[in-house]
């Protein structure tokens, strides 16, 4: 723990270098409870990312059969049974709100578990570390090789490592583009060099970013680039469980033998044997025993390392664990530990998540697959006809979100004795204009509403256009005004 320096011990330090070289991090491999959770989550995350584009979902003739597809040319987003149009982008706003709230809730419960387990930066960096250890050996071998001269063997290993990294990075970029086109077709086109240039450009960009972020930038992204640690620090409270070195139990640090001697004298010796394993396994190269800090992504690997050592020296595990300072202080004071996962902040976050989920679900369920918008003519707003009647022109835009053509009838509610005329549709059914809406698209029609001119009538009355699907009975309507000349 950092302890304040008494004023009389303060020494002015040199300004030091203006630019700090990066501290090299060679995390040691570790096994244990949190490591295996991380392996499994990594498998799930990468599995979903790489394989999801190949999942098929039958939507009928003429529609793509890819379960998740962002179709930019046709301006459609497909997600299993949902098909969204660009004007429904607000569903994504809802998803982002939900994601933010979920992040806040995670943070209130277990600190930066997003950073430690699920963030793509962590997942890919973890994968790249694994490759590095596989090819170049564990921490010790890497440190030794790094300090020693470049030999042919070492150079060969280094080339192999970068080759595997680049292949993973390329595959990452390759999977990315599959979300924007029919995956099997694009894979075939890529294999036969017939894919469009834009696919190659995106694969190249994603390859470069994956390779540099997971291969080189690594913990620098978390420490310097990512805004979340800063936001998280402002959002957290004293009850959140963070990866904590329980200094009440660990201090003062001393070797097993020395601790035996000290304890024999009846004095307090800490459980921490200062073996440095928690530092050796840390992917961001920090010392958790310095307390909660910006560099800690709370992946829990130091817990696994410490538990393994504690078991070896036959001490109770959990010297490092998900805990908080309140409990450290309580244990020092000889009180019971308390955990409060249910508190105002978590209840509010959970409540908000429920509300947003419910709103989104309702919006999705009550979403109309038939819609109509109306735009009143501006020049002229109203027209006087030769017989004295008044007429207004409107542009109606119909949205047919179903995968088949449908016939709709248009009715108008508005001024007394109003007559509706749809340009290009009146010849078949003059009394109740009907038109065909082609599937999965918008149709624009010009309509005219004519009503007798009455000097005493109100200058402007509401007019409603009601659209009825003749086959399914679905109804949509739009309201504007009928204005007298």
């Amino acid at each position: 723990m950092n302890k304040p320096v008494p004023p009389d011990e303060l020494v002015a330090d040199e300004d030091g270098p203006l630019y700090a070289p990066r501290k090299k991090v060679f995390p040691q491999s570790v096994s244990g409870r949190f490591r295996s959770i991380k392996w499994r989550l990594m498998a799930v995350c990468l599995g979903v990312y790489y394989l999801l584009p190949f999942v098929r979902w039958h939507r009928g003739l003429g529609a793509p059969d890819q379960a998740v597809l962002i179709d930019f040319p046709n301006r459609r987003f497909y997600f299993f049974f949902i098909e969204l149009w660009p004007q429904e982008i607000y569903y994504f706003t809802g998803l982002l709100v939900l994601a933010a709230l979920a992040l806040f809730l995670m943070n209130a419960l277990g600190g930066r578990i997003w950073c430690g387990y699920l963030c793509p930066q962590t997942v890919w960096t973890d994968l790249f570390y694994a490759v590095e250890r596989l090819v170049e050996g564990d921490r010790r071998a890497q440190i030794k090789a790094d300090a020693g001269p470049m030999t042919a063997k070492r150079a060969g290993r280094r080339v192999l490592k970068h080759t595997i990294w680049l292949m993973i990075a390329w595959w990452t970029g390759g999977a990315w583009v599959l979300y924007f086109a029919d995956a099997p077709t694009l894979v075939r086109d890529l294999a036969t060099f017939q894919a469009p240039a834009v696919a190659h450009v995106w694969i190249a960009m994603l390859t470069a970013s994956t390779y540099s972020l997971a291969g080189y930038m690594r913990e620098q992204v978390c420490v310097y680039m990512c805004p979340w640690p800063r936001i998280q620090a402002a959002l957290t409270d004293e009850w959140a469980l963070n990866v904590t070195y329980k200094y009440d139990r660990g201090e003062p640090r001393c070797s097993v033998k020395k601790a035996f001697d000290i304890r024999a004298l009846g004095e307090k010796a800490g459980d921490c044997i200062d073996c440095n394993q928690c530092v050796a396994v840390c992917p961001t190269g920090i010392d958790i025993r310095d307390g909660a800090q910006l560099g800690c992504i709370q992946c829990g690997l130091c817990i696994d390392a410490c538990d393994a050592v504690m078991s070896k020296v036959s001490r109770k595990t959990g010297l490092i664990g998900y805990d908080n300072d309140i409990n450290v202080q309580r244990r020092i004071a000889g009180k019971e530990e308390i955990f409060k996962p249910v508190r105002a902040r978590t209840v509010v976050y959970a409540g908000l998540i429920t509300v947003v989920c419910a709103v989104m679900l309702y919006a999705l369920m009550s979403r109309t697959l038939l819609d109509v918008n109306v735009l009143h003519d501006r020049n002229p707003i109203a027209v006087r006809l030769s017989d004295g009647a008044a007429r207004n022109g409107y542009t109606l835009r119909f949205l047919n979100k179903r995968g088949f053509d449908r016939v709709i009838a248009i009715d108008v509610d508005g001024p007394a004795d109003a007559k509706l005329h749809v340009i290009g549709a009146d010849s078949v059914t003059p009394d109740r204009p009907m038109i065909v809406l082609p599937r999965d698209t918008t149709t624009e029609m010009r309509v005219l509403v004519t009503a007798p001119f009455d000097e005493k009538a109100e200058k402007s009355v509401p007019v409603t256009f009601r659209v009825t699907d003749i086959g399914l009975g679905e109804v949509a309507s739009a309201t504007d005004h009928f204005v007298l000349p």
Partner: protein
Amino acid sequence: MSEHDEIDRVSGRSTTGHEWDGIKELNTPLPRWWVLTFYATIIWAIGYWAVYPAWPLVSGYTTGLFHYSTRASVATDLADLEKLRGQKMAVLGNASLANIEKDPVLLALARARGKTVFADNCAPCHGSGGAGAKGYPNLNDDDWLWGGSLDQIMQTIQFGARSGHAKTHEGQMLAFGRDGILKKDEIVTVANYVRSLSGLSTAPKFDAAAGEKIFTENCTSCHGDAGKGNQELGAPNLTDKIWLYGSDEETLIETITNGRAGVMPAWVGRLDPVTVKALAVYVHSLGGGK
């Protein structure tokens, strides 16, 4: 010692000397990769000078390695657009006017094209939506000087009215006053008579019989016996509610005294045939088409 001689008590490190509400910033060195990235962006920017147009010269500018020009790329895009339109417009060109109105896809295409062309060429006189103005007909109503069928509208767009084109619509409202055909009081009388044709109020001392006599002798050859007008001559219907110049007595007297001869230019040769076709459909679909 430098200006950073203030030491933070907790970390034992020097501060930058900057303070915000009692919070001081440690003088932490920048990470080296950050500094390198910063310099890399400067080098990248210099690369822009070489690749893209950048520096003004005495007459002109440095064009860059690939002679990139936003203006040229717009021209290319427009050419591509015309090519794309060419296929669609060919379909429009081959369809008859009546069939275009019956086919929703062709109608939408013609209306889209017509609307743009209307805004570019017709809006200065007829208004952006064809609402017209005094002396410029409203194209949204059902009253037509030269006929409101698709063919008639297309004829008018092609050759105009009194445009000087060989096939243009001809027809003249005579200057009955200026040319001495009618006397001042006769003009007042016939103006009131014209008002009475569409049920408008007349002056108290108005002599309807005298008005009818003047009207029959001078006006019916163009406007018809009942004043219903004649689209062959562009003579307006005087019995309806629509007035091109105005229905008040003063305006009518002015019209009869000095005559009227509004001009519409011929668009044949200025707009290509398919565009004229699209324009005719658009104007017809504004609402007044017969």
